[in-house]
Every structure is written in structure tokens, then in C-alpha cells.
């Protein structure tokens, strides 16, 4: 089997996912196009070598519907022969897209492929595409469906993380993100979103709240208490009877932000990279997606990470830097607890609590972020993972070359 190399990674900045967000007036297609154009242009890429573009997108309806990957490929003026496919592994879609693109390369079926993702959450809101899980009684009963926020609160309760713990984690995320931005750690990957006349609309993550304090967070009401107490706490307790009472600790300040954005990662074989004159930045060591218990839903990352490590013949301590999507603070705290990962090795430049989580794109974004950081610190290995709706986890291990 051939190795798949990461040749480059780019991302747009993340716009606030609301009507007053800077990217609200920018189409999903334009966001995806921006990322695809950038990765081509900065590598002088002959796109006839790119056989497929795999883009994650979680709400693939409306303007994001009907295979936005192929439409973006066309809009970015790639070679007509470059195909495009949109995939959905919920929050890990961007990483899954990258893994699938890598698999095409590793299996020898494509010299170069692009993985990435796009989500304009301000334009196609969460839940727009519907779905059977919460709505079809047959599966909702069987799997003890609860909204993610209740599951995140359940994780905090079951594994013993208090409101102070999750808030403190959030503050640290904000601090790290600001420090990274202030010191230009992200500038290698960020591609500003420009208008049709070439004027910049947004060149930085605008969701950040670096001024947040423990006090300001303490004033926020838990977001999922009402839902939980109305019904869902009782539902998850049927599956987790060891929990006497679900403590609702998550709120807007310690959960991932709703934002708009897109990302792209270029993967290729050694031969293709040589032919294109691109120096590979890292190699894919292993990847996996795994199913986990769906009611608590968000504990998949540790299982995915363990499997990816095993597949790569590695131990948790062999990883220099971890990147776990900050869907909710308790998800990261539980992962650190489960794998015994110290805080200074994970999400070292902040994460989605500070900068936001554009569902379909995040996985590709954080892969690029941690690769930049490996290079900056001159370290070798990183494990990227995300928790996934309906009880899944996706993980990828990369190693610099």
C-alpha cells in the first residue's frame, strides 16, 4: 500500500454564524471555492492531477445540497476531469473527507485528491436536513436519543466535571486562541474571504471572546437544562441509571461556536508530489471511524484514538500534539481523562469553543492547524479526532516527513 502525504492545508477564517456575521452574506459555494482556489494557486497545482475532491457538509440541502463538492470544483475552475463528492459524518465530516481522499491515494486509485469541507451555518442552519433519529419513534426509543447538549452534560455528570471545570477549560481555550492569533500561528493556513472585486470581507476568526472570564461565564444559564428536565434527562437515565441527576453545565460559552467557514487539504502520493514539485509536509499514519454508545453520543474520540494508535503501532505517549474538536468542554475533559493526555499537549492553540465549529469543515481545519503547530514547534506526530453525532468518533494520526 502506498503512503498518502499531506501536501498542503488551507482554511477560511470563521465568521460568526449569525445574521450579523461577516460571512452571512457569502454563499457556501463561494466559501468552498475560496478554499479550493487557494490550495491550487499557492501550489501552482495542475488540477488534472487531482482526480477527486471530497467535501464534508452536514446540512447538504438548499445551496449546500446536491453535491456541493462537484459544484465548487466547477466554480473554482478546476480541470473538468476533477470529480467531486459530498460526504456527511456529522461533525467529523471534514476529517472523514480527508481520510477518504487519503484512502484514494493509499489504494493507488488516485495520484492526488483533496479532502475538506464547508458549512455556512448562518445560511443553512443546523437541523435543516431533518433526519430520522430524533423523529422516528422506532430508533429514538431504541437508542435513547437526546440532543448533543444533554449528552455533553451527561458526560460531565458521569465523569465528574463540574461547572467550574468546564468553564475553566473554556477560558483556557479562549486564551490559547488569542495567543495563537496574536503571534501569527495561524497565518500559514488562513485564506481571507474576498468579494468579487478582490476586497477582503474577513481575514480572522470573529467568534472569539478573549475577554471572557470565569465570572462572565458564570452568569450564563445552562443551555440544555430546560430540554433535559422536560424529558431528555429521564431518557438518558434509562441508559445510564448510575446517574442520579444530570447536572447541566454547558452553555454558549463552553460549547463550540456556530460559525461559517471552509477548508481544504491536498493529499497525494510521493510520485505525484514529486511530479508536481511539491514538498510533502506530513504523512498519514493511520485513520479510523468508530461507533460508540449513541445516547451519551460524544465519547467516540477516545475509542477512535485508541484504534488509530493501535493501527499505527503507537502508544498515547508517542503523540506529540493532540487536536480534539471542542464540541463541548466536557468532551475534551473526558478524552484527557480516558487517555491520560496532559492539557499542554491538547488543543494547544485553542479550539472551537473560542473559534467556532463549522460542522462540515472543522475536521480539515484542525488537521491543518495542528500540522502548522508541529512545524512551528518542530515536533513529529499529531492525533486529530472529533466526536460525532449518533455516537461515533473519527481519528487520524499524522507524522511530519
Amino acid at each position, binding site marked *: 500500500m502506498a503512503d498518502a502525504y499531506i501536501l498542503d492545508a488551507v482554511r477560511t477564517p470563521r465568521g460568526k454564524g449569525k445574521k450579523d456575521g461577516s460571512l452571512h452574506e457569502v454563499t457556501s459555494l463561494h466559501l468552498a471555492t475560496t478554499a479550493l482556489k487557494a490550495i491550487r494557486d499557492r501550489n501552482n497545482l495542475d488540477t488534472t492531477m487531482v482526480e477527486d475532491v471530497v467535501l464534508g457538509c452536514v446540512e447538504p440541502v438548499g445551496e449546500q445540497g446536491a453535491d456541493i463538492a462537484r459544484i465548487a470544483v466547477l466554480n473554482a475552475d478546476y480541470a473538468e476531469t476533477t470529480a467531486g463528492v459530498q460526504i456527511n459524518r456529522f461533525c467529523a465530516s471534514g476529517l472523514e473527507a480527508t481520510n477518504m481522499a487519503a484512502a484514494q491515494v493509499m489504494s493507488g486509485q488516485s495520484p492526488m485528491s483533496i479532502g475538506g469541507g464547508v458549512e455556512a451555518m448562518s445560511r443553512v442552519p443546523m437541523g435543516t436536513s431533518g433526519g430520522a433519529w*430524533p423523529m422516528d*419513534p*422506532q430508533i429514538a426509543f431504541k437508542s435513547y436519543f437526546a440532543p448533543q447538549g444533554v449528552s455533553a452534560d451527561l458526560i460531565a455528570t458521569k465523569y465528574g466535571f463540574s461547572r467550574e471545570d468546564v468553564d475553566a477549560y473554556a477560558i483556557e481555550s479562549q486564551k490559547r486562541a488569542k495567543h495563537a492569533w496574536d503571534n501569527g500561528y495561524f497565518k500559514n493556513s488562513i485564506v481571507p474571504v474576498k468579494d468579487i472585486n478582490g476586497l477582503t470581507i474577513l481575514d480572522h476568526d470573529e467568534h472569539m471572546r478573549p475577554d471572557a472570564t470565569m465570572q462572565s461565564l458564570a452568569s450564563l444559564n445552562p443551555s440544555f437544562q430546560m430540554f433535559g428536565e422536560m424529558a431528555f434527562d*429521564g431518557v438518558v437515565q434509562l441508559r445510564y441509571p448510575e446517574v442520579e441527576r444530570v447536572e447541566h453545565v454547558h452553555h454558549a460559552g463552553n460549547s463550540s461556536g456556530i460559525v461559517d467557514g471552509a477548508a481544504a487539504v491536498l493529499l497525494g502520493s510521493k510520485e505525484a508530489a514529486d511530479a508536481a514539485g511539491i514538498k510533502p509536509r506530513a504523512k498519514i499514519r493511520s485513520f479510523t471511524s468508530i461507533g460508540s454508545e449513541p445516547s451519551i453520543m460524544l465519547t467516540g474520540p477516545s475509542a477512535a484514538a485508541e484504534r488509530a494508535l493501535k493501527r499505527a503501532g503507537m502508544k498515547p505517549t508517542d503523540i506529540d500534539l493532540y487536536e480534539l474538536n471542542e464540541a463541548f468542554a466536557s468532551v475534551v475533559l473526558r478524552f484527557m481523562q480516558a487517555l491520560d493526555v496532559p492539557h499542554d499537549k491538547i488543543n494547544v492553540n485553542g479550539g472551537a469553543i473560542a473559534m467556532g465549529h463549522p460542522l462540515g469543515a472543522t475536521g480539515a481545519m484542525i488537521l491543518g492547524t495542528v500540522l502548522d503547530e508541529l512545524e512551528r514547534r518542530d515536533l513529529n506526530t499529531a492525533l486529530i479526532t472529533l466526536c460525532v453525532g449518533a455516537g461515533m468518533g473519527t481519528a487520524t494520526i499524522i507524522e511530519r516527513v
Partner: protein
Amino acid sequence: MSNNINYNVDADGIATITWDMAGRSMNVLNESSIRDFAEATEKAIADEAVKGVIITSAKDAFLAGADLDMLVKTAFGPKDAKALTENSGTLQKIFRRYETSGKPFVAAINGTALGGGLEITLACHYRIAADNPKTKLGLPEVKVGLLPGAGGTQRLPRIIGIAKALPLLLQGKELDPKKALAEGIVNEVVPADQLLARAKEYLMGSPVSAQPWDDKKFKVPGGAVYSPTGAQTLMGGIAMSHKESFGNYPAIKAILSCVYEGLQIPFDAGLRVETRYFVSLLLDPTAGNMIRTLFISMQELNKGARRPVGEPETEVKKLGILGAGMMGAGIAYVSAMAGIECVLLDQTIEAAEKGKAYSTNLLDKAISRGRSTPEKKEKHLALITPTTDHADLAGCDLVIEAVFENREVKAEATRKTEAVIPETAIYASNTSTLPITGLAEASKRPESFIGIHFFSPVDKMMLVEIIMGKQTNQRALAVAMDYVKKIRKTPIVVNDSRGFYTSRCFGTYVNEGIEMLAEGIAPAIIDNVGRATGMPRGPLEMNDDVALDLGHKVRTQTRLDLGDAYEATPADDIVETLVVKLGRYGRKNAKGFYEYPADGKKYLWEGLADLAPVKQTEGTPALIKEIRDRLLVRQAVEAARCFEEEVTTDVRDADVGSILAWGFAPWTGGPLSYIDRIGVAEFVKMADGFAQQYGKRYAPPQMLRDMAAKGETFYQTAKLAAAAE
């Protein structure tokens, strides 16, 4: 025209189909009435002279639903999906036929229309109800473990929207006509004497003759399934009903599925979906067990199925109540409610008056809620005479003793009372633990001595456990049963035993919770799974509610009485420590297994971990299943032992009693139905397995082994025995 339906066409071409089943006080849907109704509707449709049709009833009620005997027969009949599917669509076809006939059909709802009764009207193009607040309209099928299978799950949400329909379908809520009008279920409410005239007037105007859902442009009112409001409603509805039913009732999930699936497709396809789910409920044992126990058996017991044949009818006119505490006061309340003169006796007049004040409080509450009047209250209170003088008991037909649970105190009460009451009077003890035969030793007339065991709170608990002492005669039983019937409670009859039937079996549930705690299962798991099993509360919180010191007393007494035969367990030590060393008595002193903060919700006491170190912290599906099985099997083993020992002698007593007395998981239909449902042989295997692992208390009685060997079940055997009589 038939024994069931009158058919009449007037000069203006208005046909009236009147339900009026001969020899019955109520119209019901059964094979013959359904056939006759179909014929009448066909005739109206075929007759060119008929311009419009009124469907009404000549009884007080419009139609109260399906014949439960027919349902139970079907539920316990062959589990043949194909045949059941073919037979279940009959009503749907009849309704569909008249609602698409092109002729206007109006329902003139003169009285209560429930289940299939309401479904008849939902298929009409217009519904007018007579203004009678006593009329009940609803689809209560869910309460018997079924769903409204004659289009109810499809028509109701198409008429009033998903959000309004779900509570009616899922809780079986019943509405009076005014509320039904507000909800949009009926189109008009008119004075009763104008009902038929108004129905005709409507038909003579410009009546609607097609259903909105047969219009191509039809939209579900309030939003389709995948509209924002539809999604919110269904998601919330699913979660809430899952939480409240713990997933124990297949009907709830089936109803939700009918709405979710059926409202995304055309009406006729929706009906097919409804039939599939209806049949799935007939294939599952839950509905049959629920109907048999909660309706058929309960009705039979209420009608006096267990009353001794041949004993002349009796009537208690004057009742003596010894002890005006919580129980005595409650007994006075329910008895005066039935018009019985009560003498409420206690040691001090203050105590006796306090017992009477209990009635005053309840009646004041009822008045404030519009359920009673000051006149009724005065009449009620006038029937209760508080006293300290035994002489006032003279002339009582029945005396119920409800004094302190102590043999000596009770014996003295018996002697003092028998000195003044007529020789013909029956003397009853409301003891919940002391064997009746022993108490009767203090009596001059042990043959007239009986146990009448009420449950607390007396005004709410519907069951009365009647206990036969060794010498109790049939007349005493007849008096007790006639009295229980008069106060409109459900009687079961049992023979004497420690804890009789109900307390004995209930005790196994609460004790098993403590055993599990001693084994190291996390207490939250025990109580959460206990509740999820369908029991009203978890075993540990139940211990707190009945009081741990009381439990300790019972244990100590039992240990003394049984001597070497007593099987000591780690649970004994836990209770001993809680009560004796730590003074934790339960809810009554705000500390037990739980802590009870004055200003908040109770929570598990942290100190439990020191008494019983937790070994099982994870509620895995396997552990959840095992706890669930253990809690049910432990109770069912005890119920089977009671049956073997002839403490209970009738399956109806055992099953109805279990649900009404201690809330045994109602979805099972009771412990004996539960054993039948699992299969006696399989049950024996489960119980043997638990006995091996957890102790002899699980060991199945020999009777079950014999039954398993012969392939018998409790209900088949009971049926054969009844047929032989």
C-alpha cells in the same frame, strides 16, 4: 331493522342510523353490531332518495368502544399476523366507504363516545355534540395497551394537528363536549334537545361531503411532520412519553409511529401503517395481559366474583371504627361517602375529633375544586360521630379495628368492643402484618372475625384485601364484601399468612433493593432501574417512604418468629445500622437512604458508600436487564408461593391485587400474568439461576416446577377449573 341499529329515512331524504343494541345498556362494537352498522351505511349510500345521513345513538352514551371480551379473545388468540391483519381492517373499510361516498354524514353525538365510538364520528364529515358536561369524548385505547386502529391515529391529527392530537392519543385523555369543541374535535355543541334537529338542519343546508384529507391540496393543520413545529412536537412527544412510560408500553411507541409515518403519506397508506402497528400490539403479550387484569378481572372482582355464593345480601348501616389515626380517619371518610353511619372511637375525644377533621379537610378541598358542595359536606360530616365511649358502638353491623399494631392493644380493643356490639355483628381488623387467626384468639366469636386491610391513603387506594382467619365463616366474608362494594373499592380475598398477600410480596421488592445495595450495586442504579421496571418508585426510596424503622421492626419480629428458619442476609445489617446506630428512619425524619433537604429535592445519602462499598458503578445494558429481571422475578416467586400455599386462591386476586396494592409493574398484568408471559418453564429457569447466585429467596416453589413439567399456565389452569365447576 336489526337488534343493534335502527334505520330510518324521513320525507326530506335524511337517513338516521341510530345505534340501539338490544339487551345492553351501552352500545359496543362487536362482530354483529359492526356488521349491522356496515349494512345500514351501505343502504344509505345506495338509496338515491337519501341526501344526507345522521349517525346517532338511542342510549345515554353514543358508543363506548370495542367489546373488551372480544379484544381479549383476539389478544390471546392465535398469533397469526396475516389473519390478524386481514381481520383488523374491517372498521377502517366501513368508515372509509362512507366518508368517500359523496354523501354528507353527520355525527349527532348524544353522549359519551370513546375509542371506536369516537372513531365512527371522526369519519363523519361533521360532528355535533349535545351539550352535556358528563359526556366524555376520547381515544382511550392506549390505556389497554392498544391504539385506535379504526383510523383514529390518522384522522385525529389530520383534523386538529399533531401537537393537539398527541396528548389525546398517548394519554387517552377524555374531553367534555365544550373542551372537544375548543380543541376542534367537534364542530358544534348544541343543547341536547336540539341535537337531531340541528343535525338535520346542517344536512339540509350546504353540507360538506368530502374529508379535507381527500383533497389534493390538504395540509396537516399546525404543520407537517418535518415542519419546524411538527419536528419539535414529535421530538418532544417521543422523549416525554419515553421518559414517562420507560419504554414499557409498546402501544405508546406504536401510536407515535402511526403519526410519524402515517402523516407523511396519503390517507389510505396511513391506514395500512396503522393496521400494521395495531396488529403488532396484538402479537405482543402486553395488551392482552393489561386488558385481562385491569379491566376484565377487575370488573369481575368489583361485581363480587369472589363473594360466597348463597350467602344472603347484607348491608352495613352502622360502622364502628376503632382508632381515629390516619387509617381510621380514612375509613370513616370513605364509609360516610357511601352513606354509612360511622362511630369513630379513640382514647381521647381530641384524637377522635382529629380523625373526623380529616374528612372536613378533604371535603373542603373538594368544594374548592368544585367537586362537592357545602350541603354534601354537612350531610357527610353528620354521619361521623367521634367518641371515646365504647357504648356508642352498640348497634353496629360491622366494626373495623385500626389501632396500634400490637397484639395486646388489639386484643383489648376486641374484648371491649364485643361486650357492646350485637352478636350478629362482624368484627374486622385492619392490621397489615399480624395474622388474623392469632388476633381472633381474643374474640368470643372467631367465626365472625375477619381482616379488612385498607391501604394508605384510604381515599385514594382502590384496593381492599380481605383476610380469612382459620375460623372465619362465609357470612363474615359476605358482610365484608358487601361493605367493600358499598364503598366502591375493589376486594380481593386471601387466606391468613404473615403479611397476607400484598405486604408479603411488596416486602420482597423493597428488601431486594437493599440486598442489591449490599452486593455493591450503586444505589442510583437500583432505584433508577426499579422505576424503569414500571414500579411506582425505586426500592430504596420506597423503603424510605414506608419507614426504615418499621421495616426493621418487621425484620426483628420475623427473625424471632422464624427462629432458625430465618435466612439472614447482609441487608439485615444495613437496616440495623441505619436504624439503630444512625437513627435514619426514612422520609419521616428526613434521613434514610436519601437526604431530604427542606428546600430542595431529595438525593442519595453519601454515607451509603461506607455501609455498602460500591462495586458496580456502570449501568451496562446487561446489568440493567439483570436488575429488572431480578426485581420482577423476586416478587413473582413470592406471589407464586402465596398461590401454592393457598394464601391466594384466584389468579384475579393475585394479579389485580398486586397492581392496585403495591403498584406491581402494570404492563405485566400482574405477577402471575408475568410468569405466564415468560412461560412457566423459562421462569423456573430464571428463578433457579438467581437462587443459585443470590440465595434461596429466589427458589421457585414446587408448584411451578410441576406446572412447567405439565406445560401448564396459571390462566389456562384457572380457566379449566372454572369450566369444570
